[in-house]
């Protein structure tokens, strides 16, 4: 009795639903996990793995589909894009979804070594977090972006705090309050945008921005400014990064590793919104004044963040703090890349984004493994007993350190070379000096840490029991992330071809808008 | 008929609003908590009742649809008002706004309006 079954073209194949699946699947699995929570951890793990496995398949399929260059639109509820909510999968979002999924696999592996028993609702929250992340990457609607931000954030609160105590609570409180403040600002910006432009669909907004009058543009400019602050808070850019080191360094390793992708959401949002909505679509007219203003702020801010984060890394007194600052530095590098605004630089940024997600995740895991071998000293950079399994941990840490500091030959190096290579002539002096000097300081910090951690030792006190050897699963998880990085190095060529194409796609917002308008509902009337 | 109804409604409205106003006025004017408690809990309740009656008539008359649903509102108010009043007075007694008279074996409820210990929360 459903109204019109005789639709012209039915979305019968699963492939047609690809853009919604990365959001829907983890949600379903998360809900199922809630129902089976009392049936033991084994079942939960199975379901969780099933979820991540299917998600990986879907994400890979999505990437392949996006790589043909088509921007696939998915009209949720079959409403035209401007009325309802449209999901948009282009190269960039597909890439990020796949990155998230791959990272999630490793994190899940690590968690299955035991953390998932300690943290209540871990598996459900984990899946729901994936829902939020993928939703944020795939949505084509600004308000929907907000909603998925919130899904992602609230799940992250749970993951961060479940099973935690003391200082973690305080860090969590900061994290939560700051994010709520940012969300509030986000809403204010959305209200202004809707009030002035009368739509929330990104493509529609882009179109309307380009036709707006001067007085309206002042408001749009204000809204876009607020949005920038919001996204940069999430992405931890100067001066909004202060919350991150504490939050991340207090987080359980697996969560911190998963969070490696959270700062990237902010970066992605900047990239998406400021290329599309406030991008150069106007190409003349009054809206042209709006185009690109954000980059002028982002470049110096990114460079400054890079410097400060590196100083922070040098100043760190604990391993996890060090890694947290390195995460900021990598996000800052990303900002530098994308704020240069050229296709090559954005491509470098995308490559670096994926790289830094993996390597930051890996570092958090490795550092946790090390911490567990250091007895009471934990991750404080004090002298501890000789590290058992020195070689294995050293190899893991070394690989991650080389990668994160941009030393050759791993992915960090390739990313950095791409970035340096892409810097336009007028920005070379500053950008190069900052990027190169901070690389050096990162190397110094990491060498110091490695030397403190792996080389300096005092004998174990007789009374202390030796720590248990690291679990194989956990080592495997950390190694998996490093292998991703190595894969990115070896496959640098194909990946860069993809990111080049993705960057070109980002810089041609007209195609996106056309795709959004061209998408016709199946059985409903298209919008006039 | 219409005119009469109209007058009736207007009167109800006036009375209702009047009660509401008086109830709140009592809130301002009276000097201690238990006196104030009386005004709102019922003057207002009744006032609202009147207004609701007027509303029923009004909507019926204007053809917005006749319904006794407003009665429900009144009903609920009648159920809930005592509960809140009761609890509020309990609370007031609890923090000692007024000394409660001794529990009677033989009742000796000699009320003394005394200076209440105005402890702020």
């Amino acid at each position, binding site marked *: 009795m459903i109204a019109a079954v005789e639709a012209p073209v039915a979305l019968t194949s699963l492939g047609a639903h690809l853009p919604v699946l990365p959001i829907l699947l983890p949600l379903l699995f998360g809900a199922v996990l809630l129902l089976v929570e009392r049936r033991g951890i084994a079942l939960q793990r199975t379901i969780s793995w099933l979820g991540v496995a299917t998600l990986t398949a879907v994400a890979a399929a999505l990437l392949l589909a996006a790589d043909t260059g088509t921007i696939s639109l998915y009209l949720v509820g079959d409403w035209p894009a401007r009325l309802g909510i449209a999901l948009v999968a282009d190269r960039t979002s597909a890439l990020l979804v796949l990155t998230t999924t791959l990272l999630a696999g490793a994190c899940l592996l690590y968690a299955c070594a035991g953390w998932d028993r300690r943290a209540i609702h871990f598996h459900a929250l984990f899946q729901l977090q994936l829902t939020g992340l993928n939703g944020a990457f795939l949505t084509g609607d600004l308000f929907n972006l907000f909603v998925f931000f919130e899904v992602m954030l609230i799940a992250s609160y749970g993951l961060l705090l479940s099973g935690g105590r003391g*200082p973690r609570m*305080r860090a969590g409180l900061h994290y*939560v309050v700051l994010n*709520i*403040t940012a969300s509030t600002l986000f*809403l204010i910006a959305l209200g202004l945008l*809707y009030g002035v432009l009368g739509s929330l669909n990104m493509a529609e907004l882009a179109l309307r921005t380009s036709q707006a009058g001067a007085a309206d543009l002042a408001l749009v400019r204000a809204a876009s400014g607020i949005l920038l602050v919001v996204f940069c808070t999430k992405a931890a850019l100067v001066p909004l990064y202060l919350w991150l080191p504490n939050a991340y360094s207090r987080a359980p390793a697996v969560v911190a590793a998963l969070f490696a992708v959270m700062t990237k959401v902010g970066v992605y949002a900047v990239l998406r919104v400021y290329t599309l909505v406030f991008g150069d679509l106007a190409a003349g007219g009054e809206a042209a004044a709006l185009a690109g203003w954000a980059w002028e702020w982002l470049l110096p801010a990114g460079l400054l963040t890079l410097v400060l984060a590196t100083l922070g890394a040098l100043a760190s007194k604990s391993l996890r*703090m060090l890694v947290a600052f390195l995460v900021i530095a990598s996000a800052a590098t990303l900002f530098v890349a994308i704020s240069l605004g050229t296709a090559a630089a954005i491509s470098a940024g995308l490559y670096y984004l994926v790289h830094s997600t993996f390597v930051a995740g890996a570092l958090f895991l490795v550092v946790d493994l090390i911490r567990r071998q250091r007895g009471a000293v934990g991750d404080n950079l004090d002298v501890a007993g000789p590290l058992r399994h020195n070689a294995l941990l050293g190899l893991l840490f070394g690989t991650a350190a080389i990668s994160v500091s941009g030393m050759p030959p791993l992915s960090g190096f390739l990313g950095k070379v791409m970035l340096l290579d892409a810097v336009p002539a007028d920005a070379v002096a500053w950008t190069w000096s900052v990027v190169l000097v901070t690389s050096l300081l990162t190397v110094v910090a990491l060498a110091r840490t490695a030397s403190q951690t792996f080389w300096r030792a005092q004998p174990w006190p007789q009374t202390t029991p030796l720590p248990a050897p690291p679990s194989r699963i956990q080592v495997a998880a950390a190694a998996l992330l490093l292998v991703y990085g190595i894969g990115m190095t070896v496959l640098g060529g194909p990946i860069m071809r993809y990111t080049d194409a993705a960057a070109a796609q980002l810089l041609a917002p007209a195609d996106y808008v056309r795709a959004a308008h061209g998408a016709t509902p199946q059985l409903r009337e298209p919008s006039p | 008929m219409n005119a009469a109804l109209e007058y009736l409604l207007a009167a109800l409205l006036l009375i209702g609003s009047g009660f509401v106003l008086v109830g709140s006025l009592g809130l301002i004017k009276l000097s201690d908590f238990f006196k104030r408690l009386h005004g709102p809990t019922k003057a207002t309740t009744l006032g609202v009742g009147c207004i609701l009656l007027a509303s029923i008539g009004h909507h019926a008359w204007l053809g917005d649809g006749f319904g006794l649903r407003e009665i429900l509102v009144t009903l609920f108010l009648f159920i809930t008002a005592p509960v809140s009043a009761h609890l509020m007075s309990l609370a007031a007694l609890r923090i000692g706004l007024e000394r409660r008279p001794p529990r009677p074996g033989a009742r000796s409820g000699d009320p003394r309006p005394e200076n209440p210990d105005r402890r702020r929360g």
Partner: protein
Amino acid sequence: MEFALASLIGLLTAAGVYLLLRARSFDVILGLTLLSYATNLLIFSSGRLVIGKPPVLEDGVATTLAHYTDPLPQALVLTAIVIAFAMTAVTIVIAMRSRSDNGSDHVDAGGEGMP
């Protein structure tokens, strides 16, 4: 009317921001609550202020903005209210835990500072 609402939004924002900057978790939560009021009103006002034209369709009335107010901001505010509530709940609980674990309800309590 617009002025009244705008001034209210401004005032709520100011009050919220001020409380947000206090050092105690409960004050901060109050500040967030006020801020969320301000936000909700602001989003709401993006559909403009219309008295007495709720977006519930009646027969025989043309479905235009002349007869009904803009429903979309209302839907957005609804979503925003719900989300704000969820966030408030979580924040409150974290504040409770933080106070219990760290022995003080100062927002920075229990940390040995950075880094």
